[in-house]
C-alpha cells in the first residue's frame, strides 16, 4: 500500500511542474512560523524535542516559531512529505531517514544549504565523518545529521556470564557459540539472540562482513552478493540458527518491540537495536532488574556495524525564501554543541559534531555510562549503506524475501537467492 502511495505521488510530482526555488542565502526579516515534521514519538525523544523547540522559540531573536508535528515512523514522514509536496503544502523542514534522502535528493526536493553554510561560516569539518555520507549530493549540501544512530548489541550480562562469557562477544562466531549454550542450558526457555528483519541495516552489515559490500554494491547500482555466494551463505546460516532454536524468529508484527519484551521478561538474552533507543532500553532494563550490557555489534570474523537514522532537510518546494531561511536558523540551532550533546545524552542518538564531544555534558555522561560512548566509538568501523536511488526499493525487496524464508519458512535459501536475482535484473 505504502509503496503504491509513493509511486502514485511520484507521478503526481512529475506532472505538477512547479518552478524550482533556488536557494539563496537570505535573512529572516519578520516573525515567521515554520513546521517541522519528525518521527520522534517515544517518550524520551518527544520530551527532548519539545524541549529543543521551546528553547529555540523562546531564545531566537528573529521571531521564528517552529511547530513540531509528529508524523509517525520514518516511512510515514517520507510518505507524508512526498504527498504534501505533490499537494503543494509541504512542511518547511523534515526529519528524513537515510533511505528517503536519495529519493528526495534525486528529484531536487531538498534545498541546497551551501549558500547558508558559506554565509554563516558553518564549519562542515566539525561534522563527524562517519555520519557525513548523506549530507552531500551532486556537489550540494542537502542535509544535516540529526538523529543518526548505529546498531548496538544489547545483552543480558548475567546470562552470558553464566555460560562462560564475562565480556562482550567480539565475533559473530563467538556470539553464536554462547547464544546456543544459553538456549541449551535453559532447556529452550531462553533464546540466545534475536534480530528483526531490517535488510538495509543489521542484515546488510552481516552480509558486508562476508563480502565487504553488503546487499548493495559500493557504486549503489548492483547486488553482487547474489553472485558471490555471500547472501546465500548468510541466509542459509540464519535459517539454520532459527531452525536450531537459539536464534529467535522475528515476530510478524511489532518485531522490534517483541524482542525487547522478551529481553525484559528474560526469555531472550541479547538483541540488536539502534543506539537511538539506548535511554529507553536502559530504563526498561533497570525497571525489570536486568544487568544490561551494551556492546559493539559483530559480524563474521569481527566487528561490523551499520549507521542509519535521520537527518534534517529543508523542502525545496512550496516554501518561501523566508521560510527556508528560518528553517536554516533552526537547523543551525540544532547543530549547536549544547543541542547535539543534549540530544545524545537524553536519547542515545549519535553526537554528530566533534566539538560537541568535548562538552561537559557528553564527557560526564560517558564517564558514567560506557554504553553511550561505545556507540560513538563504534563509528570507527561502522558504515552507511551506499547513497543510491535503489536503496529504498532494493532493501524492501530483500526484506520481503528474507521474511519469506525466516518467517514464512516455506522456501529454501537457494530459491530466495534465485528470486532475488530475477528481481535485481528487473530493478538495476
Amino acid at each position, binding site marked *: 500500500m505504502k509503496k503504491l502511495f509513493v509511486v502514485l505521488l511520484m507521478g503526481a510530482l512529475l506532472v505538477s511542474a512547479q518552478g524550482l526555488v533556488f536557494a539563496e542565502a537570505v535573512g529572516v526579516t519578520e516573525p515567521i512560523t515554520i513546521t517541522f515534521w519528525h518521527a520522534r514519538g517515544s517518550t*524520551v525523544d518527544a520530551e527532548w524535542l519539545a524541549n529543543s523547540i521551546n528553547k529555540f522559540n523562546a531564545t531566537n531573536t528573529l521571531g521564528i516559531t517552529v511547530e513540531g508535528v509528529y508524523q509517525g515512523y520514518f516511512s510515514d514522514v517520507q510518505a507524508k512529505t512526498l504527498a504534501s509536496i505533490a*499537494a503543494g503544502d509541504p512542511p518547511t523542514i523534515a526529519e528524513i531517514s537515510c533511505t528517503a534522502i536519495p529519493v528526495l535528493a534525486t528529484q531536487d526536493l531538498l534545498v541546497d544549504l551551501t549558500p547558508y553554510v558559506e554565509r554563516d561560516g558553518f564549519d562542515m569539518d566539525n561534522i563527524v565523518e562517519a555520519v557525513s555520507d548523506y549530507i552531500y549530493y551532486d556537489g550540494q549540501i542537502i542535509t544535516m545529521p540529526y538523529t543518526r544512530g548505529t546498531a548496538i548489541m544489547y545483552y543480558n550480562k548475567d546470562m552470558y556470564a553464566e555460560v562462560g562469557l564475562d565480556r562482550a562477544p567480539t565475533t559473530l562466531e563467538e556470539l553464536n557459540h554462547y547464544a546456543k549454550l544459553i538456549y541449551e542450558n535453559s532447556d529452550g526457555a531462553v533464546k540466545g539472540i534475536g534480530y528483526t528483519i531490517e535488510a538495509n541495516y543489521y542484515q546488510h552489515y552481516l552480509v558486508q562482513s562476508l563480502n565487504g559490500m553488503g546487499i548493495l554494491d559500493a557504486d549503489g547500482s548492483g547486488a553482487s552478493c547474489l553472485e558471490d555466494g555471500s547472501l546465500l551463505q548468510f541466509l542459509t546460516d540464519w535459517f539454520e540458527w532459527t531452525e536450531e532454536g537459539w536464534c529467535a524468529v522475528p515476530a510478524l508484527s511489532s518485531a522490534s518491540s517483541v524482542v525487547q519484551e522478551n529481553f525484559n521478561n528474560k526469555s531472550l538474552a541479547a538483541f540488536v537495536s539502534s543506539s537511538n533507543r539506548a535511554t529507553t532500553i536502559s530504563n526498561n532494563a533497570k*525497571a525489570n532488574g536486568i544487568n544490561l550490557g551494551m556492546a559493539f555489534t559483530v559480524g563474521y570474523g569481527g566487528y561490523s556495524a551499520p549507521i542509519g537514522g535521520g537527518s534534517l532537510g529543508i523542502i525545496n518546494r512550496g516554501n518561501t525564501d523566508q521560510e527556508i531561511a528560518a528553517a536554516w536558523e533552526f537547523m543551525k540551532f540544532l547543530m549547536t554543541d549544547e543541542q547535539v550533546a543534549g540530544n545524545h545524552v537524553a536519547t542515545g542518538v549519535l553526537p554528530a559534531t566533534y566539538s560537541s564531544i568535548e562538552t561537559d555534558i557528553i564527557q560526564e555522561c560517558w564517564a558514567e555510562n560506557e554504553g553511550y560512548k561505545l556507540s560513538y566509538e563504534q563509528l570507527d568501523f561502522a558504515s552507511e549503506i551506499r547513497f543510491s536511488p535503489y536503496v529504498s526499493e532494493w532493501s524492501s525487496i530483500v526484506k520481503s524475501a528474507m521474511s519469506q524464508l525466516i518467517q514464512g519458512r516455506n522456501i529454501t535459501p537457494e530459491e530466495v537467492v534465485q528470486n532475488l536475482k530475477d528481481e535485481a535484473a528487473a530493478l538495476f
Partner: protein
Amino acid sequence: MHSKYTGFKLRRLAVSGISFTFKLFMLVLFLFPFYWMIVTSFKTYGGSIVFPPTLLPHTFTLEAFEQVFTRLNLWNYLKNSVIVTVAVIVIQTLIGVPAAYAFSRYSFKGRGIMLALVMAAFMVPTQITFITVYIMMSKLRWLNTLLPQIVPFGASAYGIFLLRQAFMQVPTDIIEAARLDNAGEIKIMTRIMLPAAKSSLMTVTLFSFVGSWNSYFWPLVMSNAEKVRPLTLAIERLKDQDAGINWPVIMAGNMIMVLPVLLIFLLMSNKIISSMGYRGIK
C-alpha cells in the same frame, strides 16, 4: 416408561447445557479483550510483558494513566474528536435524510443513475480516494483545520442507503394521508418518515459515531498539525515499537478512547435493542 421420561429430560438438559456453554463461550470471546485492556492498563510495564501473562496485575498502579496525561495534551485531542464526530453526525443527518427521502419517494430524471452513484461511492474504499481528496484539501488550504475530517463524510452512502430502505417500508398511504392533511415535504420527512425510520436512523448514527470516533487512517493522512488531530492519533502516538511498546500506557489510552463509546452503548442499550424491534402498525 420411567426411562423414556428421564431420557427426554436428559436430552433437554443437554441441549440447554450446550446452549449455555455456547453463550458463555461467546461472552468470553467478546468480553476478554476488554478485560485484558482494563487489566493491562493497571499493570507496570514489567508486569505487562511477564511470561506467562497474569490475569491480574501483580502490582496495581495508575502510572500508565498518569503517563498518558503527561505525555499527551489530551484535552486538545478529545476536543477535536468530539467536534469532528458531532459535526459529522449532524451534517450526515441533514444531508442523508432528505436524500434518502427523495430516493425512496420521488421519481425524477436520473434517479437510478444517482442512486447507483451513491451505491458506487459506498463500495469505493477510502484507500482509493484519499490521495485525490488529500490534494484537494491541500489546495483548499484546509489541512490545518478540522474540515478535511468532516466535509468528506458529510454524506454517508451507507446512511442514505439504510434510511432509504427504511423509508420505503413506510406505507404510501400514510404519506398520502399526510399530504391530504396539508403537510409539506419537510414536515412529512420529520414527522412521518423519521419516527418510522427511528431504528435505522439510530443504527446510522451509531455507526457514524463509532466510525468517526475511531477513525484513524483518514485523520492521519488529512492532518498536518497537532492542533487538528483526533484522539486516535494521539493514542497511536503512545506506541513506539522501536523503543518497546509500553502496553499499559497504550491500554490506558485505549480505555480513555473507548470509554465514551461504551458509555453511549450502555446508556442507550435499551433504546437500541427496542428500536431494532420496531415494526410499523397496520
